[in-house]
């Protein structure tokens, strides 16, 4: 929960160094692929950047700026990918992304949430999924012979994307089964994770849904929640603690679980049919934005001293290595890295598609261009929304492979 006044320190600390727009020097490779903020790169004006948005937030806080003339479109065109935030925090103690979230809450309060996002929110409210499909069909893809482990304290949270990409959910089930992980599904009790609400500043609706979800986990005796969706994962870890007490709950991405199973020798893999050179795209919500959020309510004293000491989310502890470990374990698969990788990965642009489709399409094409420049024959990731964006037709089209599906396909048939 945030309001603009909470981020006054950030707004007044910015010296316009540009770190929020450019790749960190440790990863610099050349002229191309040096921008980390797709919004700024596409639109050009500084208002379309972390620096610009925190300045806009300051003017809103000071009552100097109004919505209604396109500001709301700018604000929601930003995919909130967090590249600005972690780049800034590589050198500063500022909360750029949280300021953007607070600005979104301000926009919602002012009544300017863009129409496509209202529709999504209404879908979540009415059908518990982002697509507005019947809740009863949430698990329609599930094989009739699937059986939960009734005593399990682990749940596989399939997410709304299972409506669209049931192959991912099925692949996750196959991996868990192959590795001997005992788990269950929440079935009709599984609702949207809430990402489309909290990430867009819809505080009240988000809080209601998130608390409900946490209660559901507890009601089912769940201690560990596994998901194959980066957006759900990032929300559980980076969003939920803002609205609910998640103490005692552990959230894992399927790639973490799979990597653990692989290193423990619990998954047996077969060789692929053809050698394949792939690159891995780090989803924002699995990578830099997946660190646990630790609420902080303290005082900032002179010269930046935070009392009590604050736990910062600087993007260092995202899930970066496990997906790569899996790829390295797939015989015949060669991993090549893009320039903007790990915490510096360029966003796929999916979050902007409803508000600024031209920009979203450009961002996806830009990311595919980078993958091609790295020499990849296919781009691998593990987020259904990245799949929407990067797997779509359009400029620089390139085969997209979901990592969970890819791994499941390589599992040796169980005896």
């Amino acid at each position, binding site marked *: 929960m945030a309001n603009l006044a909470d981020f006054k320190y950030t707004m007044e600390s910015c010296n316009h160094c*540009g*770190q929020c727009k450019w790749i960190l020097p440790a990863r610099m490779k050349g002229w191309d692929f040096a921008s980390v903020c797709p919004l700024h790169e596409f639109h050009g004006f500084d208002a379309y950047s972390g620096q*610009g948005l925190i300045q806009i937030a300051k003017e809103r806080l000071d009552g100097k700026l109004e919505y209604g003339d396109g500001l709301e479109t700018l604000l929601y065109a930003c995919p909130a990918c967090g590249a600005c935030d972690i780049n800034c925090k590589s*050198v500063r103690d500022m909360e750029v992304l949280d300021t953007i979230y607070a600005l979104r809450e301000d926009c919602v309060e002012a009544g300017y949430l863009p129409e496509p996002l209202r529709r999504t929110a209404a879908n979540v409210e009415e059908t518990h999924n982002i697509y507005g499909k019947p809740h009863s069909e949430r698990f329609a893809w599930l094989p009739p012979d699937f059986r939960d482990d009734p005593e399990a304290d682990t749940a596989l949270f399939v997410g709304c994307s299972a409506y669209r990409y049931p192959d991912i959910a099925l692949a996750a089930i196959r991996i868990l089964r192959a590795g001997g992980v005992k788990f269950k599904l929440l079935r009709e009790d599984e609702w949207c994770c809430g990402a489309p609400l909290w990430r867009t500043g819809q505080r009240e609706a988000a809080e209601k849904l998130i608390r409900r979800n946490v209660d559901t986990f507890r009601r089912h005796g769940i201690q560990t929640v596994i998901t194959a969706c980066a957006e759900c994962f990032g929300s559980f870890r980076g969003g939920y603690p803002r609205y609910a007490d998640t103490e005692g709950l552990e959230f894992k991405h399927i790639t973490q679980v799979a990597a653990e199973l692989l290193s423990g020798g619990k998954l047996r893999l077969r060789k692929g049919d053809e050698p394949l050179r792939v690159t891995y795209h780090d989803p924002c919500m699995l990578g830099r934005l997946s660190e646990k959020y630790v609420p902080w309510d303290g005082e900032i004293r002179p*010269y930046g001293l*935070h009392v009590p000491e604050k736990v910062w989310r600087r993007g*260092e502890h995202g899930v970066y290595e496990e997906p790569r470990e899996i790829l390295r374990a797939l015989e015949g698969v060669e991993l090549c890295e893009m320039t903007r990788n790990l915490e510096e990965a360029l966003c796929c642009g999916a979050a902007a598609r409803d508000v600024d489709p031209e920009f979203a399409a450009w961002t996806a094409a830009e990311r595919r261009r980078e993958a091609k420049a790295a020499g990849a024959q296919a781009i691998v990731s593990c987020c259904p929304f990245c799949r929407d964006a990067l797997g779509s037709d359009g400029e620089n089209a390139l085969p997209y492979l979901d990592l969970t599906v890819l791994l499941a396909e390589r599992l040796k048939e169980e005896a």
Partner: protein
Amino acid sequence: MALSAQAYRELAAIVGERYISSKQHILAGNRVRTPEIPFDYHSADAILLPGSTEEVAAIVKVCNKYGICFVPFISGTLPDAYANRAGTVLIHLKRMNRILEINEEDRYAVVEPGVRHVQLYPEVRKRGLSYTAASVGPGGSVLANFTSTSGDHHTQYGSSRSNRYLLAVEMVTPEGEIIRTGSLQGGCGWFCPDGPGPSLRSIIKGYFGSHGQLGIITKAAVALDACKGPAEIRTEGVSPHHRVYFDSDLSRVYVFNYDNIQNVCQAMLALGEAEVCSTVQKYFYLPLTLLMSDSANDFWKKWTSGYKEAMSMPLVVHIAAQSVREREYEEKILFDVVRETGGKRLPEELENWWTEHMDYFMVVSRLQSVLRLGGGWMPIKLGADSVQHICDVGESIGEYIYEFTETGKIFDAPENYQIIPMEYGHFAHIELLFMWDRTNPAAMKGVAEFRARSREEDLRRHFHAEDVGCLNPTLLQLGPLYSNCHIWMQKIKESFDPNNVANPML
């Protein structure tokens, strides 16, 4: 004065509707107040994103026609690059971002204003070349650094200041003419800044650039040095704990602490005479601790537990040799000189930080962490002369700074100045960096007092501790003491900008 509809239409016709805006929220992105500037900037009436020199020239002509002031803008790190009066448009040059040429044989690169250090530096390094990327950080514009800022760099001891490396340029004059300097004016390419005869280069950059007051530089060639170090850099870890290594037997970093600036001076001169080492720099101790810290809280822990004393006057030395034998030869001289001048090597755990952060010696990575204490921050003096003179300037700071540090008006770090020699000790640059608590509204008064006092003390001693800047109030104050240069600057400005529309600060 708001932009007239007619003027807006004419400007939009030049760049296209997509690349001009007068919407308030777009203007807000550059209507910014930074922690070190105690006032709100004026709002620009519009921001334009031209895509070529010709578009810039056409915009400037429209500005002259309607009496609209213009300010060229790229990264926004210079406080002068903002609207300073009503009736101003910002000409944001970021779309002009091509590296037009990297000429390996003739050792120069030609860039447009939007090319950033983090883009050009790796490109030239791949080719075994390098340049003195000024201390602005990775997102700084290469062109603005070479043409507009003081452009000093940590590694300029074995090379020089950016002035030396600015070759031919193309510029749009305040009236919208396109002019070229040096060999480009002579029709002979980019390699030479001077001539034919006297040099138009003279109005491009003196000690500082003109910050758009004499025109908008649209292309510039910068000279490239041989890169002493590996072309491939090894990076480990994830931000903010990247470690960047030079995997090479030819590279070594040493840091020594001194207790006396005159001894540092002697060391700098002795090393310079021997023409050894690549970087020799007396660094600031406060930013150094900040560079090594994970957060402001972490800084406070380190600062109060020995870092301040252990690195009170650090001399940072980087040896980048062409052979192991040369490295050993340079090390031998370095250790002799340090022994003779009373330097003490830092403990290994502190010195190792440098070896793991070689990006410091390339694009001045992580520089912005000096702002971690909240951003109340100001570099002053910024002058250059001989190493001896500049060390004398540094030594005198202790005679007047304590009444500000001990009363809490500014941060308690009285030795927080850096001295960077150039051209193997022929000259040196000084920067006194002080910080203050910007959350305290009264602090700005102390800041102004300290700035004024520093200047007053230097003038009283007849120290050349600072230069006069572009055509701004500082120039009017100091000009009469600096060969009446304000008069000549004004005459040049009037001659080239008769309508006074090019970033007028007076």
